[in-house]
């Protein structure tokens, strides 16, 4: 006694047809909640990427002239070492900078190609002892005036804004996405219950002639699985779109940010598949619960 695939497929197809509006509503809810959740996670990744250089208390970065002489560079280094207001710094040479760019843009080889280590500036990532924005700005201004310094970028200008924005926004989007996901699960549950209601005669007969509970349950769980899968699959291109939206942001911001505010396409793909998987789980579990409640008489 085996559960035949054609039986399950036939039952699922007929359930879909009978409850087309509810099915669509469920799929759309799954899609929206998965897209939001995916976008929120993606956004978090983008922020992490954008702010990678600003970790561990780095407040400003001194970019040296690409053609700086070793003496001038040693001068800057000495200044940083001597300054009481600098608690520490890291030197990123051209090769390290290039490695980082490769890391961040690894999936856009055409961009990496145009960049060579020689064209990238070396930099000092500076941790000031006093992180008050005004004090950091003063310190940064002092270095900006140094000969051999191409420019100084402070965290306070862009990164603080992004980090502030992201921590709040990311949390909120994730909360909304989770609420929507629960709503989707409840909707799936409801759809299945409606399907069960419209087929209560069938189920009554199935119980009477001795169909095993799982035999009754599997077609409905399969229906939930399909709904979740479809919702998840539709969410993938939508998540891609949100990623493109990040790229638009990139165009607006300074060159330095271009290095950060992108997400690896492979990451987008894996996230997409995770969302499909999540949709499948939510769909299957939701319908499983719905049927179980119906069967437990």
């Amino acid at each position, binding site marked *: 006694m085996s559960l035949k695939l054609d039986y399950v497929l036939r039952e699922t197809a007929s359930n879909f047809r009978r409850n087309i509006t509810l099915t669509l509503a469920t799929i759309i809810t799954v899609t929206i909640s998965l897209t939001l959740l995916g976008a929120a996670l993606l956004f978090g990744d983008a922020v992490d990427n954008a702010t990678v250089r600003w970790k561990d208390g780095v407040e400003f970065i001194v970019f040296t002239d690409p053609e700086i002489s070793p003496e001038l560079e040693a001068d800057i280094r000495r200044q940083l070492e001597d300054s009481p207001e600098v608690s520490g710094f890291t030197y990123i040479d051209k090769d390290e900078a290039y490695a980082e760019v490769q890391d961040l843009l690894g999936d856009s080889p055409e961009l990496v190609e145009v960049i060579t280590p020689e064209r990238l500036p070396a930099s000092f990532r500076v941790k000031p002892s006093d992180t008050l924005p005004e004090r950091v700005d003063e310190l940064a201004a002092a270095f900006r005036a140094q000969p051999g310094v191409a420019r100084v970028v402070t965290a306070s200008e862009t990164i603080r804004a992004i980090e502030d924005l992201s921590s709040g926004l990311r949390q909120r989007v994730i909360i909304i996405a989770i609420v929507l996901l629960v709503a989707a699960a409840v909707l799936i549950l409801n759809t299945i219950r409606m399907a069960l209601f419209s087929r209560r005669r069938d189920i009554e007969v199935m119980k009477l002639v001795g169909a095993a509970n799982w*035999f009754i349950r599997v077609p409905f769980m399969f229906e939930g699985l399909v709904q979740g899968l479809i919702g998840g699959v539709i969410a993938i291109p939508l998540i891609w779109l949100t990623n493109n939206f990040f790229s638009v942001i990139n165009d607006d911001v300074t060159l330095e940010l271009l290095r950060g505010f992108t997400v690896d396409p492979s990451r987008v793909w894996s996230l997409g598949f995770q969302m499909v998987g999540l949709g499948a789980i939510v769909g299957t579990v939701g319908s499983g619960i719905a049927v179980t409640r119906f069967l437990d008489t």
Partner: protein
Amino acid sequence: MIRMENVTKVYKGEVLALQNASCEVQRGEFVFLVGPSGSGKSTFMRLLNKEEKPDRGRVFVAGRDIGKLPSWKVPFLRRNIGCVFQDFKLLPNKTVVQNVAFALEVIGSPRSVIKSKVPAILELVGLSKKMHNYPDELSGGEQQRVSIARAFVNRPLILLADEPTGNLDPNTSLGIMTLLDRINRTGTTVVMATHDRSIVDKMRRRVVELDRGQIVRDQSRGVYE
């Protein structure tokens, strides 16, 4: 085949459906359950396939205490008990042959078995010519024959019939009774709840009379009253 020991069933704590009922039915017997509405006939039947659980007492089917049956085994109990109802309980969107095949399909019977068993049983109930009709294209008697075919296609040990002739005219009822009698002669135990005096009097089988949840009469080759 069936044994009830001091069974009491109370609905919602107040409606007494069966009160200390004890009864034994042998393999191959044909038993009429008679009594006014609400006397506990349907409850008697529903206890047998574990649609209801007794509040007190024990119910044995084929020598097994079904109260001790784990819930996942209940479907296997029901495969041994065919059920026929007054309102037929056919699926309106399935043809005659699909309705009967459905009963085998959902217990996982192989397709080859379904292909051989379904036409044979429809032949038995005399509906071979209407195999591909839908239930609403059939008369009440024909619908009941389909429902009997569905209940019997799996060759259950017991056939429960809850007022199977309740919606049918006397002549059609007679045809249904002939069919049930034939099924009984194959060795299947038949328990039939009915209000139909003429049928009971004509068949002269064992009669168990219920009144307000108590068995007030148990008579072999009995009459309605």
